């Protein structure tokens, strides 16, 4: 909303620097978005919040400023003469049949010549960002910019039956509007009609056929009040928003209809129009007074300003144009001016007192509320998991939650995906049911931008429909693709392969004493054979595998990619418990074993076999190295394992350990026919 400093000066006695005024605007609910100096004026572009339709005109703004600056309130001073011996009743009749129109006022102007507006009006409108059309249209716009009240002008002679009827729309009824579009009405709309048909959609837009045109000489000024929500309903249904509907749906001042009509009449009069005496003013129902009780102590308590005296509160309240009807010691009865539609409760007055007192004058305090110490465990655990992944080289990404239909259909489990009714575009039409497509997208983006290797993770939500219920889950996904920088000094932890991903997942659980295992499980997103369910304590906690080729093609990816998606809900509680074993008192004895074993036997087979032997003194064993090469045969693999033996009550001698070690060797030879190197 554009505000002219010159117009403000005509309404109130204000004379401060533009800088000072800007600061006043900002502190008085009128935040300045832009300021523009013209030759002789300064224009403030101010953001008006939806609760303050009174500020959508210069009078309202002047009211706000006068209250804030504690100066006299604005006055719109004007006078015009009317034609003697005439009466408006001879020209037009008004009937309200639809009481959603609460008041309808109007004035008739005769012998008016439609032409260009005088210079001063053109200039004013232009500085307020409104294009000048002709003197009649310009008057409507100018009246709205000054009073904030939208008016409409008809060509009086085109109104059939010389009658205005405010009524409900008739289903199927059509009206050609001022923007030259034909609109169909319903019974929910409020319609302004003559005796034949609709001539305007109330509060929204006028009709083309009865509007003021170049041949018009006699004008009927309409200035009415409609219940806001019905205007909003119609404007939304018809998808039309006009300066008029914008104001009516936020709420006009029911007591301002006559003033706005008269101010318009005054402008027409100044431009040579003849004003027919008396204002038509029809009401549907009484206009009730808005009276609110205000308690002084409540004001002090809500604002937290205990030094604010009763007298000071009364003074501030009066500045707002509020009349104090009675005072009962601890409270007052306030009559709220009709243009302040936003004030209908005690708290609304308290807010105004706060603004006029100055938010920046309120001394800050700290609330005394204490609701216990918060248990931050879940967040800490998630942070710990994130830290483990980052130490493995994974960087965190954050993605949109919506994708194209094709992408969103990519999921580890069969899911019914959720559609957005009004997406930004078809690329963002469905909610993701897995984090996988997001990470594939990130990989494509980065591999196309000088990145050789990708290690990324995301902790985010996924969505799907299940048995007519919307499900929302938090998943943790990791993706590895490409290769490292190929430094000669590269360590195993810098690798970009399946075991790098597996190692990262295992280390999440390292301190819990829990082991995870992988079970082969075909999944369309993964390569056949390199596709697993991740199991912990016989519970599925996620999936892991190598991305299938056809899925990679969807993203123009060719590098090997490994992916895991975990369901934190399934294991987050396990991470809360650290399992601790006492530090051993006696030294251990260890032996390394290198075996050549057929590729048909997996490491997990060997592990199981050793585990089932219940070997005496065997504390633990772990993989040292894996080797494949021509010299040991294509069907074989060389595996080195270190075995740690220990007695809990004494120092174990090496003969005892060796005896146990030999048992393991014998078993492996017997069971898997391994060759010992």
């Amino acid at each position, binding site marked *: 909303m554009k505000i002219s400093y010159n117009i403000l000066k005509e309404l109130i006695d204000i004379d401060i620097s533009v800088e000072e005024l800007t600061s006043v605007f900002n502190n008085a609910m009128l935040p300045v978005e832009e300021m523009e100096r013209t030759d002789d004026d300064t224009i403030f572009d101010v953001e008006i919040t939806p609760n303050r339709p009174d500020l959508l005109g210069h009078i309202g703004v002047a009211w706000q400023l006068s209250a804030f600056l504690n100066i006299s309130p604005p006055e719109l001073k004007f006078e015009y003469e009317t034609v003697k011996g005439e009466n408006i009743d001879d020209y037009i009749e008004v009937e309200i049949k639809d009481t959603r129109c609460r008041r309808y006022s109007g004035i008739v102007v005769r012998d008016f010549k439609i032409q260009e507006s005088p210079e001063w009006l053109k200039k004013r409108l232009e500085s307020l960002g409104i294009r000048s059309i002709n003197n009649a249209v310009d008057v409507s716009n100018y009246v709205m910019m000054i009073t904030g009240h939208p008016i409409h002008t008809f060509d009086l002679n085109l109104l059939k039956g010389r009658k205005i009827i405010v009524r409900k729309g008739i289903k199927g009824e059509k009206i050609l509007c001022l923007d030259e579009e034909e609109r169909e009405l319903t019974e929910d709309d409020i319609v302004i009609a003559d005796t034949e048909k609709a001539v305007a959609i109330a509060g929204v837009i006028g009709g083309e056929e009865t509007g003021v045109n170049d041949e018009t000489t006699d004008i009927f000024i309409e200035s009415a009040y409609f219940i806001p929500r019905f205007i909003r309903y119609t404007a939304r249904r018809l998808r039309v928003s006009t300066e008029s509907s914008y104001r009516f749906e936020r709420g006009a001042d029911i007591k301002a209809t006559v003033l706005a009509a008269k101010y318009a009449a005054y402008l027409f009069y100044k431009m040579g129009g003849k004003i027919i005496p008396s204002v038509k003013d029809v009401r549907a129902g009484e206009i009730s007074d808005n009276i609110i009780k205000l308690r002084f102590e409540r004001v002090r*308590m809500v604002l937290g300003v205990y030094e604010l005296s009763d007298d000071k509160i009364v003074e501030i309240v009066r500045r707002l144009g509020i009349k104090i009807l009675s005072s009962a010691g601890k409270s007052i009865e306030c009559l709220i001016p009709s243009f302040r539609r936003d004030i209908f409760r005690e*708290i609304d007055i308290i807010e105004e007192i706060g603004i006029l007192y100055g938010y920046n004058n309120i001394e800050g305090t700290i609330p005394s*509320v*204490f609701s216990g110490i918060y248990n931050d465990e879940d967040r800490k655990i998630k942070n710990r998991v994130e830290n483990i992944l980052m130490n493995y080289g994974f960087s965190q990404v954050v993605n949109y939650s919506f994708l194209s239909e094709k992408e969103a259909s990519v999921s580890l489990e069969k899911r019914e995906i959720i559609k957005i*009714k009004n997406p930004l575009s078809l690329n963002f039409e469905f909610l993701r049911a897995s984090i996988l497509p997001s990470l594939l997208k990130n990989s494509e983006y980065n591999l196309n931008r000088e990145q050789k290797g990708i290690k990324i993770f995301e902790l985010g939500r996924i969505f799907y429909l299940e048995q007519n219920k*919307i499900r*929302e889950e938090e998943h943790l996904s990791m993706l590895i693709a490409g290769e490292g920088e190929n430094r000669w000094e590269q360590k195993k932890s810098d690798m970009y392969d399946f075991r790098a991903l597996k190692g990262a997942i295992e280390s999440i659980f390292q301190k819990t004493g829990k082991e995870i295992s992988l079970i082969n499980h075909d999944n369309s997103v993964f390569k056949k054979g390199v596709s697993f369910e991740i199991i912990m304590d016989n519970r599925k906690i996620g999936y892991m595998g190598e991305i299938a080729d056809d899925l990679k093609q969807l993203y123009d990816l060719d590098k090997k990619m490994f992916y895991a998606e975990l369901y934190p809900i399934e294991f987050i509680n396990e991470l809360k418990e650290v399992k601790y074993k006492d530090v051993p008192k006696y030294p251990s004895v260890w032996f390394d074993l290198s075996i050549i074993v057929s590729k048909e036997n997996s490491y997990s087979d060997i592990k199981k076999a050793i585990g089932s032997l219940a070997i005496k003194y065997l504390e633990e064993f772990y993989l040292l190295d894996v080797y494949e090469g021509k010299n040991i045969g294509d069907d074989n693999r060389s595996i080195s394992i270190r075995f740690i033996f220990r007695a809990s009550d004494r120092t174990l001698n090496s003969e005892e350990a060796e005896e146990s070690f030999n048992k393991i060797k014998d078993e492996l030879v017997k069971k898997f026919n391994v060759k010992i190197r």
Partner: protein
Amino acid sequence: MHDEVIDSLKKEFIEKLNKIKDNPSLLALKGEFVGRKRGKINELFKQMGKIPAEKRKIFGQAINELKSFFEQELKQFERNLKIGSLSQKEEDWTLPGYKIDIGSKHLLLQVMDEVIDIFLKMGYHIEDGPEVETDYYNFTALNIPEEHPARDEHDTFYIDYEDRDNRYLLRTHTSPVQIRTMLKKKPPLKIIIPGKVFRKDEPDDTHSPVFHQLEGLVVGKKISMADLKGTLTTFLKALFKEDVQVRFRPSFFPFTEPSAEVDVMMNGEWLEILGCGMVDPAVFENVGIDSEEYTGFAFGLGIDRIAMVKYKARSLRLFYENDLRFLRQF
């Protein structure tokens, strides 16, 4: 005669020491002269028995002096060897350290953590809620009924699915969690709600259809606007710096009254950082809290915006492109 022995030994030592070029030969020299088993000093001590008693004391003193001379020289030489050019031939100490690729936490979530930590220290509790919300929790319960023009300011993504009771949407703010919490728990309440939110905005430098918010809510007896001011000022000082300039401007939100917007001064410019206000009695009524007995305040801040201001990021898009060259710098 014994003096000659000592002198020649000293001479021999100095000659040999001057020829030393690396650590192993230094160690060998050490063994040869001051070694415990076959060192030349020890050999001398062994000869002590053969010496007449009256000269034994003087000879002993001389050997001891020679020994400490050797030790001093060796120590000095060793020290020089370590820092000198000799040692560089073994190791190039200027080579870079071993590199480990440590990943980064996403900048937005780093900022989120920073904000959360400040509020946790102030005694707040974290609450959480769904990202797919109902129209009721996201709007109606927050005093934004269907016909309210304030709805226009929230460009909302609606879900193409409805059931008997609800219309669904992607939450436009984390405020619905305030409603859910107030329905579930009794005051006093002191909570924060971090999370992802959605608005139908085309992505550009200052808009994103997905962004992050943190909201706070305090409900108790005699909670005031002054408490709101004090709390947010304290927070902003912790987040930026102790002497940051803060201003409160009156504003409007359907769910708070009075309402304010808060700006901080950054590089000579006021930047809007958060919105706040006293919980509107209508909201309390919707959740069954007596607004005569309890008052409260609420605030909301955009994490993306704070991250932009703090790190002078040129565009919001950087946060969602997930370019590793950007992410890994933080």
